[in-house]
Structure formats: structure tokens, C-alpha cells
């Protein structure tokens, strides 16, 4: 099944060299390195400018800010690593927020991947109506989350539709948004509803590209549908699965809007994620230096987790067919 990509790469890389060798005595002047460099810079300039102004600039600015006590109002001075030290040693809720963020990410990631994969597989096996179902499940993805969360808040509010439904089916659970132990589940629920469609579409497309001949061959060999899924489909869509997992993990670590609209981090700090903490430290208590420090800690966490995922992918992602 596997193709010798290394050999192919060698061939393609060798081709220009070979063609050059064919014409050793050619009178063509080699384009000057300096000239092509200048031209390259010219072509790169627009995106380079955009990158500098909109990405590198703010990044550096927030890094610098994280070493200051900037509070918008009042005098600002450099405080060295004080923000970071305070965050990790003094802040009474930082570790709780970190735990909440990781818990949310883990729960949401698993549920999102399982749900979106299940629905994608189910849709891929439908005889008709694939497009309709894909659109239906994808719909929530392009609705603005803040608006959606407000509707959910009406559903989940004490004495709202959700409580009524739970009572109706005899489930004795407290109101989701006012109970500290359950509030995070409300955020997970809303996030899942609004975001699983993206991964479903991604996995659906990957499943469509699995060659039918493999499945036919496996069927002739007596493989059950279950075996076909685990042994053929899953390995073949693993690159998409990996992509979906990494992006979902990054997004859920940064979760902000559903928390903002649903619970404002409450009750207490039950649903305060790092993303929301950055906002509340920055724009509720105006400690923008401190907020920047949290942002960089979040950045470091995301980098580490992504690096870990990239490392682990060697064990389970199959790029060759």
C-alpha cells in the first residue's frame, strides 16, 4: 500500500539539477542572488507588512505589557516578572481557572470528536439526504455564538425550558447555570451544539475520500462493518482527525465568548476559563499588564500541548495510503 515517497522526492528534487547539467555550457546568465532577493522581498512585502502590523506587533506589545503594571488609568511602570510571579504564587484563583480550562478542554475535545465522528460516519452511510443532514448539523457553526448563547441562557435560566424538561423526564438535576458544580456542563453543552458541525464536515469529507475498492476488498475478505471502520476508515482519515483534534484543542483552550454570554465566568469562578480571565482582568479590573501575563501563560500552554500532539501523531496518524 505504501509508496516510496522518499524516492519520489529524490526524483523531483534531482530534476532541476539534471536539467541544469544538460546545459553546462549554456550562455544564460545566472540570475543574480541579490536581484532575486530584492524581487522576493518586494513580492513578500504586502503580506510581511500585514504580518508585522497585525500579528508580530501586537504579540510583542502584549509581551512588553506583561512586564508592566499598566492599568489604563494612572502611571505605568515596568515591574519585571512580578505579574508572572503573582499569577503563579499569589493569585487565589489562577490554579482553579487553569484546572477549569483543562477540564473543559478535555471534556469538550473528547465529546466533540466522538460526536462529530459518529454523526459523520452515520451520514456517510446514508443512502439519501447526505447534503441535507450535513447542512442541518453545520448550521449552528455559522451562527454567531454570542447570540446563540443568549438563546441558550433563556433556555437554561432558573425555571426555564431546560429545568422544565428535566423535571418532565424525572431527572433531578439542579439548574445548570446557577449551580457551581454543573455550570461548566452548560458551557460544554452550548459549545458542542454550536461547534461540532465543523469537525463533522471535516471528517465527512475525509470519509468520502476513502476508496470504495478498499472497503469492497475488505468485505470480500469477510471484514464486518465495525472492522472496516476501525481497520480501514479510521486509519485513512487519521490526518483529518489529527487536524480536527489540534484545532479543537486550541480553540477550546481559548474559550471565551460562550462563557462571556452564558455565565460571565460564574457562578463564582466555576466557569472562568483562561480566555475569560484575560478579559475580566483586562477589561473589568483594568489590569492590562496582568491580563497580558495570563495571555502569555495561555500561549505557552497551547504551544506545549500542540507540540505534544504533533509528537504523538507519529504513533497514530497515517499519511500514506
Amino acid at each position, binding site marked *: 500500500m505504501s509508496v516510496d515517497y522518499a524516492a519520489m522526492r529524490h526524483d523531483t528534487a534531482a530534476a532541476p539539477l539534471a536539467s541544469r547539467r544538460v546545459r553546462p555550457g549554456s550562455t544564460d546568465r545566472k540570475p543574480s542572488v541579490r536581484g532575486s532577493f530584492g524581487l522576493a522581498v518586494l513580492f513578500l512585502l504586502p503580506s510581511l507588512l500585514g504580518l508585522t502590523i497585525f500579528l508580530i506587533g501586537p504579540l510583542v506589545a502584549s509581551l512588553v505589557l506583561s512586564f508592566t503594571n499598566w492599568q*489604563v*488609568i*494612572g502611571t505605568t511602570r515596568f515591574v519585571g516578572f512580578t505579574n508572572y510571579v503573582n499569577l503563579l504564587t*499569589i*493569585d*487565589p*484563583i489562577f490554579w482553579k481557572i487553569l484546572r477549569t480550562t483543562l477540564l473543559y478542554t478535555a471534556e469538550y475535545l473528547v465529546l466533540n470528536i466522538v460526536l462529530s465522528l459518529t454523526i459523520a460516519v452515520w451520514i456517510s452511510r446514508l443512502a439519501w439526504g447526505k447534503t441535507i443532514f450535513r447542512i442541518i448539523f453545520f448550521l449552528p457553526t455559522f451562527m454567531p455564538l454570542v447570540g446563540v448563547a443568549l438563546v441558550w*441562557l433563556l433556555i*437554561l*435560566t*432558573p*425555571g426555564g425550558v431546560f429545568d422544565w424538561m428535566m423535571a418532565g423526564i424525572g431527572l433531578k438535576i*439542579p*439548574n445548570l*447555570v*446557577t*449551580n*457551581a*458544580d454543573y455550570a461548566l456542563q452548560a458551557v460544554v453543552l452550548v459549545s458542542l451544539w454550536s461547534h461540532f458541525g465543523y469537525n463533522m464536515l471535516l471528517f465527512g469529507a475525509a470519509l468520502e475520500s476513502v476508496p470504495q475498492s478498499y472497503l469492497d476488498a475488505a468485505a470480500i475478505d469477510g471484514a464486518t462493518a465495525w472492522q472496516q471502520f476501525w481497520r480501514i476508515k479510521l486509519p485513512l482519515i487519521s490526518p483529518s482527525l489529527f487536524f480536527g483534534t489540534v484545532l479543537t484543542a486550541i480553540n477550546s483552550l481559548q474559550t471565551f465568548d460562550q462563557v*462571556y*454570554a*452564558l*455565565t*460571565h*465566568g*460564574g*457562578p*463564582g*469562578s466555576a466557569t472562568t476559563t483562561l480566555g475569560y480571565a484575560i478579559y*475580566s482582568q483586562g*477589561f*473589568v*479590573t*483594568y489590569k*492590562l499588564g496582568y491580563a497580558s501575563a495570563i495571555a502569555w501563560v495561555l500561549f505557552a500552554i497551547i504551544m506545549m500541548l500542540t507540540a505534544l500532539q504533533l509528537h504523538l501523531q507519529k504513533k497514530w496518524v497515517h499519511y500514506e495510503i
Partner: protein
Amino acid sequence: MKTEDTAKTHGVSRRKALALGATAALAATGMLSRPARAATNLTWFMWSGSEPEVTAWKRIAALVNEKHPDITVEFQTTSFPDYWTKLPALAASGKLPDIVSLQSLRAPGFAELMDPLDARIAADKLDVGAFEPSIFKALQRGGKQFALPYDFGPLILFYNHDLFTQAGLPLPKPGWTEAEFMAAARALTKDGRHGLAISVPDAFVVYARSKGAPYLNAKGELDLVNPALKAAFASYARLVADDKVAPLFPASGTLSSNLANGRLTAGSAAMYVDGPWQLINVKRKSSFKVGVAPVPVREAGSISVSAGSGFGISRTSQNKDAAWKAVQVMTGPDAAKYLAEAGRAFSARKEFQKFWYDTAAQDVVGAREGIDAAIKTAEPYVTTPNWSTVASLFEQYAPLAFAGSEKPEKVLETIQQLANQ
């Protein structure tokens, strides 16, 4: 044509007249430079909670233009909690509006963004005696005046008159007691309805002060962990957790006082505590007769806190003189009369408070005696510079105590710790 006629009478040649006419036409179409008395466009940032409020404020902006045709005021608005988030963000990006709205509770924290008005007040010999002294003083910081007040008022109890009369209960009135209040709250809690809708922190501060509990220490610093306040908060939380006369509220983007307001106007709660400035929203949204009374007498009496808001000039404004003219109009007699009649503002100008009673509150039961009584025993709502933070921490953490997830005393300790962090 008119130009030509005028030209003839002045004996100017036809050609010159034509040239003049052309110039006038050009000027009219804006192709030439502006005339000497250029219009000044001012920006004004103000919070609002409903469409009637927006209409009221736009009218105030128009009023400035009527008095000073060379000044136009552009009204920009957002919700109350967002206002205090956006204001520092605007300050940070150097985009503060010319006219800034300031609430007395937030004056300690935000005065730095504003220009002191003392020299202007003295130069124009503004009659500051026309304003209610407590609110005029509440918009000062370090002895300097940072805004002129447009409204003020003690927090009062709004109630659903229809529900009280249907239940055959005596109406809340000045001097009514805690026992009467609780009896009413219990009697009105039935059929999926609650007797009361509570909110934090303002309504709780009134509750605590009536119980004699302080929330600041002798130095004026935040002190939420004194035993008296802890006891008051525990009994406040019991209204929800044990007595169940008030509903739970979630920590959400909507202020608990707005949720309480919504419950009263929707008829799902019979009473709630808020400022008289809410009358505009309560009246327009509710389909029942509204009543007003002071908060009940508790251990220390019926103690309310009075607060208010005003307008000032931002420190970075390029049009401070024009802004000062506008602020004077916006807090002046005509604006006071309009806002009082619209029910948006219980005027900070003493002589205009009657318009609020006579027009906005004319069909509100007990308005005049209720507010008069509340003013007599009210204290100025003194706060700390980080009151925005304290308020949002209350919104976020208090539901833990009401839902019974955490002890009320512990909740206050957490808020105190996080506010002073």
C-alpha cells in the same frame, strides 16, 4: 436671485454679483472652505438600558443644538456594565469622547479621565446651589468637581400594586417593618411567582445599611468581612435559599438588578429595589399599576443609599469649551424638566423634582411620600475606587451563596480577597 437683487441695490456690477452668487453656491455645496463659525461636533458617551432611554438621551443631545446651533452632540451608547469596560478601552486608545457620563459610585475610579470643572464653574458663576448638595459632592474627587449631576436618588422599593391589592395585603408605606415586608413576600410567593426579586450589590448595600452593617472601614476601604456584614449577607441569602421568597439568578452578562427589574415588570416578582431612574423602564414595560415605597425598617431603620450621575468633559477633548457649553445645557433646567417628566431622572436640580412627581410618577402609588421619606434617611453611597470590580465580583460570586453552593460568609471573603488582589 436674492444675491443679484441685493447686489443691484448696493450698486455692485452684475459680473461681480454673479461671481458672488457662484461663491455662495459653492459654499453651500461645501466646495469652499468652511465658514468662520464652524460647527463643532462633540461626541458623548452614555449608558442606556432600553429604547425609551435612548430616545430621552437623543432629545437631550438635540437640546444642546437648539441652544447652541454651532454645536452638535453625537450620542453614543452601550449597556451600563459595558460602559465601564469600554470607557477605559477608549481612554487607552486615546479615543475618549468629548463628554463623558459619570456615575457617582464610579467617580473615585474614573475621575482621572476627566477635566476638573472648578475653574469653569467659577468663571461662568454657575449656580451650584440649584443642585442637590449630596450628589453634587458625590461627583467630586480630591475636592475637585469632575461632573455636573443630572439625576440623583435613594434606592427605593418598586412593587406591583395589583398583586398587593389582589392578595388583600396592606400596601408598603414609609415606616413599614421587616415583619410586614416578610409577611408580604411570603404571601405573594405562590403560583410560580416570587414575592421579591433580589440583586447585588446595590440592593444588598441598602439591606445591610438598614441592618446597621458597614461595608467600608473607618478609612473608607472595602470591608466585606466584618461580622455584621457577614450576618447581613447570610440573612439576605436566606431569602433565596431558605425562605424561597426570591428566585435564584445566574451570574450572566445581564446585571442582577436588570434581571430583577425584568421579573417585576413581567409580573413574576412582586417587589424589587432599585433607583428612581428605573421608573422609565418599569412603567413602560409593566402592564400593572406600579407602587413605590422606602425599604422596610430593619435594625438600624429604613436606610437607603443615594447615588446619581452627571456629565463632564474628558481630559483629552479637543473641544473643551464647546463641551462645557453642552454639559451646562445637558444638566440645565430644560434638560432637567424633560428628563424628570420622561421619568428617566429624578432631577439633581431641586426645583425640578416636582416634574418627576407630577408627570412621570403621577400614576405611581406612593411616589412622593415614598421618595421624600427615603431621602430623609438616605446616606450618600460612598464607594472605593475599584467599585466596578467589586460590583462585578458580587454579580459573579453572590449566586454561589444564593444557590447554597457556598457559605455566604465565604463568598464575602472571596470577593474581598479578589477585589484587593
